[in-house]
């Protein structure tokens, strides 16, 4: 067993210990397990939200995308800016409503807002379908990290299984408390590693950051800007828009906002999180430093850029520390995703099925047990998909983003004072949006295939925009046809609130 592998295992065990220890002194009810009894202060809410910034998507995908495509990778900086601006106005009303009605999950919110259990089930299913690729990309990243950083001492499959077991154990025992406390360890280690690599590698290979960019510009002119076609300015701004609207639509991000003690905690994050997102620059520097040193990585292999250059540069013990940080970027966000999927299945799907089959309302203690038992089953499904292989980390996430973004129009309508959309409109809008995403993903159609007469400058628009547009049109048309329904639902909810 080499030193790198020992460091990686040591970190996994430390994460497991922290995760399990997090439940001490707490009665792990369903509300504690999923939303920490709504008792997290600004610091822990920050860590949960920031945990979303440093996943394997950034650690491997961010550096790999910078290595593979250059300028278009900057979109990751753009959606950070816009998401945090948006969060200032959308998260507090969501938190307030969830607290008032003691809601536990994203589907609960939609079901209560629109007075429609059917909409709740639909949102739960969308959440599960969108979160699976997200879980798969964390596991895929985990496999890459363990295999490469251990100098093939362990296979990718073995690494994925070990990480999955650690994650399942502390999710079942501690729920969101485990995710929050392992986030502390993860964020310190990842920040240190990202800054070190982002500064050291350009200096080591090029004599500085600016000389690195000058060398790349000389060897590959235009690589550091956006191309004229393909992933150009139109693609970038439409992708930024889509990912911004989807950022807080992820079920686990939505539920992370429920854990806050006050709405001020959520507003404060709008100015602290952008500073944290700046660390992405260092991740990009790693990818760019690799461009001229280890050329030739293509397809899914671009995700290996960070580790390929680390192994070429450092002793095994340094690679072990980098690998340990990488493992945490997979298992901590993976734990939040796993918990969110388990909660959606138990609280919103199982509860509804049980209610309709024998007309019995399951109590929260029973639902809590079902959610904890669902965790290993969900992980097994994630493992199966992971071991099938396939796409790059960024392409997996962009597809999943298209799915969750379809919830945004209905959410926005729901937090408007007069709620101008009926429940039928919300359901049809989401269904049309998701169906469009599914068709576009399967057929690999581009926007010019769909709309042959579209002006040239719009041909590279992210196809997710088409799904979102059709979603809004369908939502408004159906609402117009069922206008009285919208008012009736709204009045009913208002009466419930007063009662």
């Amino acid at each position, binding site marked *: 067993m080499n030193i790198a592998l020992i460091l990686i295992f040591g970190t996994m065990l430390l994460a497991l210990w922290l995760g399990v220890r997090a439940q001490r002194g707490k009665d792990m009810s369903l509300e504690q397990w999923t939303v920490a009894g709504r008792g997290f202060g600004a610091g822990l809410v920050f860590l949960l939200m920031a945990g979303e910034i440093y996943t394997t998507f950034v650690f491997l995908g961010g550096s790999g995308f910078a290595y593979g495509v250059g*300028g278009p990778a*900057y979109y990751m*900086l*753009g959606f*950070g*800016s*816009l998401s*945090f*601006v948006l969060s*200032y106005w959308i998260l507090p009303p969501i938190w*307030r409503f969830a607290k008032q009605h003691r809601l536990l999950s994203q589907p609960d919110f939609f079901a209560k807002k629109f007075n429609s259990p059917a909409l709740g089930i639909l949102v739960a299913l969308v959440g599960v379908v969108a979160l699976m690729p997200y879980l798969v990309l964390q596991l895929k990243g985990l496999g890459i990290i363990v295999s490469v950083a251990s100098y093939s001492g362990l296979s990718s499959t073995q690494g994925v299984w070990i990480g999955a077991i650690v994650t399942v154990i502390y999710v079942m025992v501690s729920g969101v408390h485990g995710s929050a406390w392992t986030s502390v360890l993860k964020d310190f280690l990842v920040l240190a590693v990202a800054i070190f690599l982002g500064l050291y590698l350009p200096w080591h290979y090029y004599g*500085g*950051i*600016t000389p690195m*960019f*000058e060398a790349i*510009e000389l060897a590959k*002119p*235009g690589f*550091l*800007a*956006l191309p004229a076609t393909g992933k*150009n*300015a139109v693609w*970038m*701004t439409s992708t*930024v*828009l889509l990912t911004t609207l989807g950022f807080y639509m992820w079920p686990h991000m939505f539920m992370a906002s429920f854990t806050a003690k006050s*709405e*001020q905690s959520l*507003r*404060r994050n*709008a*100015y*602290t999180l*952008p*500073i944290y*997102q*700046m660390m992405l*620059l260092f991740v*990009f520097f790693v990818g760019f430093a690799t461009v001229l040193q280890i050329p030739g990585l293509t397809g899914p292999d671009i995700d290996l850029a960070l580790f390929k250059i680390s192994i070429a540069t450092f002793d095994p013990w340094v690679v072990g520390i980098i690998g340990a940080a990488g493992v945490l970027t997979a298992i901590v966000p993976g734990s939040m995703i796993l918990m969110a999927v388990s909660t959606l299945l138990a609280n919103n799907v199982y509860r509804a099925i049980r209610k309709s089959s024998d007309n019995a309302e399951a109590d929260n203690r029973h639902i809590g047990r079902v959610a904890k038992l669902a965790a290993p089953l969900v992980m097994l499904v994630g493992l199966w998909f992971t071991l099938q292989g396939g796409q790059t980390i960024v392409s997996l996430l962009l597809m999943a983003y298209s799915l969750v973004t379809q919830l945004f129009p209905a959410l926005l309508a729901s937090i408007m004072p007069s709620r101008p959309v009926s429940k039928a409109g919300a359901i049809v809008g989401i269904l049309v949006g998701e169906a469009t995403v599914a068709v576009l993903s399967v057929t690999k159609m581009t926007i010019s295939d769909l709309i042959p007469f579209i002006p040239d400058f719009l041909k590279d628009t992210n196809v997710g925009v088409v799904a979102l547009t059709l979603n809004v049109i369908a939502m408004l048309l159906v609402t117009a046809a069922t206008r009285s329904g919208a008012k009736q639902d709204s009045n009913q909810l208002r009466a419930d609130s007063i009662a």
Partner: protein
Amino acid sequence: MSAVRYLALVPVATVMLGPFFFNRVTPFLFGLPFLLSWMALSLAMTSVVMYIVYRFDPRNAPGYVELGE
């Protein structure tokens, strides 16, 4: 608060317009490719702008209670 909150549109505009108007590598800005530097500055500005919005929002004052609570 009413006027201050519109400041939040500034980083939104810089992010969305930057790729169209500043899609270039040189001149390097703060030692980085121009567009990368522009996007990073937009992110830094988001933090500053949202801090100003937060400070001028009466709902964040200590002891603030929402009407009807």
